[in-house]
C-alpha cells in the first residue's frame, strides 16, 4: 500500500507577534512546526502501513526550509519525503496550492507508485481554510472523506475503505473505493515517538526536492500568486471598541458581589433571564 501524506510547515502560532505600528507579522525567530492537524493524518497513514505493509511518502510545498518538517516526519517513521519548492509557487491561494500539490502527487505516482490513499489534516493552523484537501481530491478525481474520526476498515484486495466521518449532530459511516483522499480530524490518534533507527535514517535521508518543472508543472500561470483567483487587498488590525471595558471597583465589597451588581445594573432583564436559564425553563 502506498500512502501520500500532505503536510505543511507553519509558524508556531502560539509565538506569532504582530508589529504594533506596521501591523505586519514579526516572523523573526518564530519557530516553525508541522501543522499540528497534519500529525493525525501522518499517524493514521503510518498505522495503515504497519498493518498492510507498503510505504508512506510525505509531501510538502514550501520554502527550502520546509525540509525541516519533512525530516521530522521521517523521524516519526515516514519512508520518503518530497519537497516541492519553487519561487513560482509563492503567494499561492488554496486553488493554486491544490494545482501544485495535485501535479506533484501525479509525479509521485509515476515515480514511486500510485497512491492508494492521500491524507491531509483537516485544516492548517495558519490558513484555517480546510479547502486544500477537497481541492486536491477534485483535481485528482479522488473520492473524498473529510473530517474522518475513525478508519474502520481498509480492504486492499477489494479496494474499499470504511470510515466514520464527523457531521452535524453525529457521524456518518461511509464506505467508498480506493484510491481516495482522507482528511483526518484532530485528537483521533497520537503521533508515535519515532524509533531511534528512524531518527538516524531521517538525519541522513535524501529529501526528494522538485522544482515546478521537476514536478511536471505544465502551466506556470496556474501556480502561485498568478494562479490565484483570490487577491488579498488589505491586511489590518481590528479597531478597538470606542469605549473600553468598565472596570468593576471592589474596594469595599467582595469582588463577586460587586461584579454581579454591575451586570444587573447594566442589563436589568439579565437577572430574570439567568433565573430561567439556571432552572431550565
Amino acid at each position, binding site marked *: 500500500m502506498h500512502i501520500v501524506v500532505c503536510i505543511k510547515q507553519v509558524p508556531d502560532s*502560539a509565538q*506569532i507577534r*504582530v508589529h504594533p505600528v506596521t501591523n505586519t507579522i514579526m516572523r523573526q525567530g518564530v519557530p516553525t512546526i508541522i501543522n*499540528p492537524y497534519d500529525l493525525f493524518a501522518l499517524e493514521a497513514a503510518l498505522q495503515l502501513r504497519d498493518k498492510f505493509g507498503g510505504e508512506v511518502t510525505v509531501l510538502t510545498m514550501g520554502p527550502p526550509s520546509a525540509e525541516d518538517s519533512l525530516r521530522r516526519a521521517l523521524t516519526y517513521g515516514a519512508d520518503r519525503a518530497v519537497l516541492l519548492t519553487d519561487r513560482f509557487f*509563492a*503567494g499561492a*491561494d*488554496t*486553488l493554486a496550492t491544490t494545482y501544485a500539490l495535485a501535479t506533484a502527487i501525479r509525479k509521485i505516482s509515476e515515480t514511486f507508485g500510485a497512491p492508494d490513499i492521500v491524507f491531509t489534516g483537516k485544516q492548517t*493552523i*495558519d490558513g484555517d*481554510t*480546510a*479547502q486544500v484537501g*477537497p*481541492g486536491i481530491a*477534485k483535481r485528482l478525481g479522488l*473520492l473524498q*472523506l473529510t*473530517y474522518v474520526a475513525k478508519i474502520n476498515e481498509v480492504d486492499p484486495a477489494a479496494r474499499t475503505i*470504511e470510515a466514520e466521518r*464527523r*457531521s*452535524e449532530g453525529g*457521524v*456518518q459511516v*461511509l*464506505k*467508498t473505493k480506493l484510491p481516495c483522499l482522507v482528511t483526518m480530524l484532530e485528537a483521533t490518534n497520537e503521533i508515535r515517538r519515532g524509533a531511534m533507527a528512524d531518527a538516524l535514517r531521517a538525519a541522513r535521508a535524501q529529501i526528494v526536492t522538485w522544482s515546478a518543472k521537476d514536478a511536471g508543472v505544465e502551466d506556470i500561470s496556474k501556480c502561485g*500568486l498568478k494562479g*490565484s*483567483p*483570490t*487577491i*488579498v*487587498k*488589505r*491586511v*489590518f*488590525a*481590528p479597531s478597538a*471598541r470606542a469605549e*473600553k*471595558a468598565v*472596570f468593576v471597583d471592589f474596594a469595599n465589597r467582595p*469582588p*463577586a458581589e460587586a*461584579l*454581579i451588581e*454591575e*451586570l444587573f445594573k447594566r*442589563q436589568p432583564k*439579565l*437577572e430574570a*433571564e*439567568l*433565573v430561567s*436559564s*439556571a*432552572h431550565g425553563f
Partner: protein
Amino acid sequence: MSEPTKAPPAAAGRAATKKELPEHFKAYKHVWVFIEQERGQVHPVSWELMGAGRELADKLKVDLAAVVIGPPGEAVQHAAAESFCYGADLAYIVADEVLTDYRNEAYTKALTDTVNTFKPEILLLGATTLGRDLAGSVATTLLTGLTADCTALDVDADGSLAATRPTFGGSLLCTIYTLNYRPQMATVRPRVMPMPERIEKPATRIIEHKLGMVEEDIVTKVLSFIPDRDSAKSNLAYADIVVAGGLGLGSPENFQLVKGLAAVLGAEFGCSRPLVQKGWVTSDRQIGQTGKTIRPKLYIAAGISGAIQHRVGVEGADLIVAINTDKNAPIFDFAHVGIVTDAIRLLPALTEAFRARLSPHSRDRIAS
C-alpha cells in the same frame, strides 16, 4: 502558502487590477445562499447567511436566491418555502433520492450544475463540516476563488465582493477579493452573522433543477448515521449564556471552576484555543476563529487574554465580562465589563454568589 502570504496592494476593488472581468463572466448575476438541510433540519447558519445575502443583493440591486438540495418531499419543499420568509426573491431546488444523505459526489454535481446553468455572481455557504466539504469541491470544479470563514461581507462601489476574515492564525484581519472569476464564493461560520427576523411571505418563484445522476453513478455509500449522545452534544454556538476559561486558570484542574459556574447559570462552557492545544479541554468547546463563534446574551471570560482569533468568535455577545489579572490584556479592549483579579479566586465566589441569587427562594422574590 495560503492567501495571506501575498503582499496586499494599496487600493481596493477591480479598479486596482489591470484585468477587466472576462466577457463570459459578465452574465453572472444575483446572490445565492446554499441552504444546508440534513435529515429534515435546516442548519440555522443558512438563515443567518440569508440575512447577509439580502444586504449584498440590495446593495447590488439584484435578486437573492436560496438553493436547496436534498431528497424529494416535504423537507426540501418546506426549506425552500421558508427561505422566502428570510428574504429570498426566488429559490432553486435540486431534489433527488440520491441526495437523501449528504455525499460529496452528488451534492458537488447538484450545486456545480446549478451554478453553471443559472450563473450567480456570489455564492455563500455555511462553514460547517458539510459546507466546507462541499465548498472546496465546488470551487475547485469551477476554478474560482473561495474565501473561508469570513467575518464580514460587503460589496465595493464597483460591485466586487469584499470578504474579510482573520489571517495569520487570527492575529490580523484581511479583505479578500475574487476579481476575475465567477462566482465569488465565501463561507461563513455559524453565529458570525446575526439571525435575521423571520417575516411571513408567500413562496413565489421556485425553480426545480434536475440532478441527472443515478445511484449507480455514486461510489460512496452511507452505511449508517450514528447520532451524538445527548450528553456529548454541546449547544455552545447557540447558547444564551457562556462561561469560558483560558490559560490564566493555570491548570486543567482549575477548569472545573468554569464548569461549576456554567452549571449554576445553566450555561454552556467553553475555552480559548491554547487549552485545546494543551489537551485540557476537547476541541468542540473551543471558542474563537478556529472553534465556535458565539452570540450569547452574557459571556464570561475567565483568564482569557483576548487574542484576535478569540475576539472574532465572541464579539457578537450582548454583554462580555472579562476576568483577568492583567489590566492591559487585550480582552479589556472589547469586553463591556472587566474585573482585574485572579479568576481562580473569583470563580468559586462568583459561583456561590450566583447560586444564592438564583435559588428558588430568590426566584419567588423576583416573581412577586
